[in-house]
């Protein structure tokens, strides 16, 4: 099981990836949409965890690009819940159960990932 974490906060992305790895999940991270796309072309990921708000390429747009690239890929979204507008737009697009609000709980994240992969 390979997970791609995309967040412009390196501290957050790297720590999350490491914690997943400690639990036996292969977690990789990217700091921008471009980097994520590059990684996705090189490797296969089962699930991508995307921050909604990122400079240049936001989570929602990145999801579409990744889906074109890797049709089988599943997605989870992270949000700082910063702006109601973005949050609501995202929720309607991907559904509330694929949403995680920062700061998040690692066990909940893993549960969601497993849940996503069972479908």
């Amino acid at each position, binding site marked *: 099981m390979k997970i791609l974490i995309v967040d412009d*906060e390196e*501290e*957050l992305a790297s*720590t*999350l990836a*490491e*914690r997943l790895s*400690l*639990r036996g999940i292969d977690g990789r991270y990217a700091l921008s949409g471009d980097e994520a796309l590059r990684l996705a072309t090189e490797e296969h990921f089962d699930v991508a965890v995307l921050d909604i*708000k*990122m*400079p*240049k390429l*936001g989570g929602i747009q990145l999801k579409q690009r990744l889906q074109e690239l890797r049709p089988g890929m599943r997605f989870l979204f992270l949000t*700082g*819940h*910063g*702006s*109601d507008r973005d949050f609501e737009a995202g929720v309607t697009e991907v559904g509330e159960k694929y949403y995680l*609000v*920062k*700061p*998040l709980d*690692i066990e909940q994240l893993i549960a969601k990932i497993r849940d996503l992969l069972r479908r």
Partner: protein
Amino acid sequence: MHRRFALRPLFWSLEGEPVGPYRPLFHFRRLWKTAVLLTLFVVLSPLGFMAVVDHRLSREVIERDIHYQTMRLVANTRQNITFFLSERKSSLAFIERDNTYEGLSQPLRLTALLDTLQKSFGDFTDLGVVNAEGLQHTYVGPYTLGGINYRDEEWFQVARETGIYISEVFLGFRRQPHLVVAVKDDLPNGSFYILRTSIGLNTLNRILGELEVSGQGDLFLVNREGVLQTPSRMFGPALEKIPLRMPPYADWIQVIEEAYGSETLVIGYAYIPDTPFVLLAVKNKANLMASWQKSRREWSFFLAGSVFAIVLVILGVSTHLVNQIYLADRQRTAMLHHMEYANKMASLGRLSAGIAHEINNPLAIINEKAGLIRDLFLLKKDYAEDPKLLALVDSIHKSVERCSRITRRLLHFARPSEGRVEELQIGEVIEEVLGFLGKEAEHRSIRVSVAVAPGTPMIRADRGRMQEIFLNLVDNAFGAMEDGGRLEIEARPVEGGLQVRVADNGCGIPAADLQRIFEPFFTTKDERGGTGLGLSITYGLVEEAGGRIEVSSEVGKGTEFRLFFPMTAPPARPKESRT
């Protein structure tokens, strides 16, 4: 205790009404007064004018009618009297022509003639024949007047000269008022004689008395000195002098008005030609006008009632309308309050959302780092002296530091504005505002450049209000721009103060809207929840700070706000520009 008059409208006393932007739009008491006075003037002045004109016209008509009636009465009576006298004159002239002087000089013949006259007319008392020397040589009648010489009498002189004489009324021997008529007849030998008769006044009195004079009036004859020739209801029996000034001689009938005591008399008169008589018709004007006065009084009551009703209605309607305007104005003020509050809350909500996002990121990092430490303790055996753990703890500290920076800034920013004026560096204020909106700019790839020119002076203003001004302007610019836009903020010294330019390359504002953007409630972003108060409040805040704000815009190219603030401090140290 002061008690409010129950009928006093709400707007009458406006103590405690707000001043400044929430003051009432009108001076309601003045508005009410103007409305009442104008309406009263417009309604009552034509009414008053018409009432006066009608009063004068109807009075003139009545007076003219009274004069006309009096004139007609005098004309008819004059005709009757003239006829009465000429009848008697003609009778004497007929007798003279029908008889010879010698025949008339015989008492028997004269007696027969007097008898005939008395039977025909009734009021002939006697008959006498007077020769050219003035001697009444033949006389028939109830008195012994035969042989009297009238040569030196006035009537004889007049009759000799003019051929006819009619005397004034006098008592004579019988102590009965009567008059004398004498007619001269020329003889073939060049001499003459005069036939003379006394006439009682019964017939004449009957003629005058029978005429009904309206308005308790009076109709009588006087001589030219004002002595009554016939009895008068008002002034007594014949031969009394009337207490009125004699009217001046006139050929034809005249009607005049004369004051008599407290009353006004309408006097119609005619000088009867070839006689000493003046016919007078005297009426009391007040009696004649009584019916008109009565109808006037009734009309006046009606008019006063109407005026009272009009005044009442005008007062009521004006009060009601002004009160409605007052209530609407109060509603407007309340709405303005409400909208400003809503706008404040919306700003606060936006601010909170930004802050939550800002803080959630470092919190997430703290969370993950702490989580990782826990993982390392639980999942790995060799944690002691592990440099990784120290790095993790450092990282946690850094995130905590980042959080506290945000909260410090937040406290600095959100401190309620109390109108506390302090020396401010405009660049600092702009940086503080961008501290909150910077993240949005980053996410939307909006390039924001801030340039504070060297020598830009400090300003004295309230920090919170200045932040609100720039927050509104920057937020507005962000709203107008597509992602990837450019916002330029420049501050530079100008004469007397400093100018700040906030320019975006957004959608721009159409010229028609540009004139109205500072008006309260004017908004073009209804669908995005704009209250239309942001720029209006900004405008108010800039003015409050003693500054002014201008705007220019071009659709499709962008909008530029220029703010001018007066200088209150010497130029600050040159500050580096940042892009």
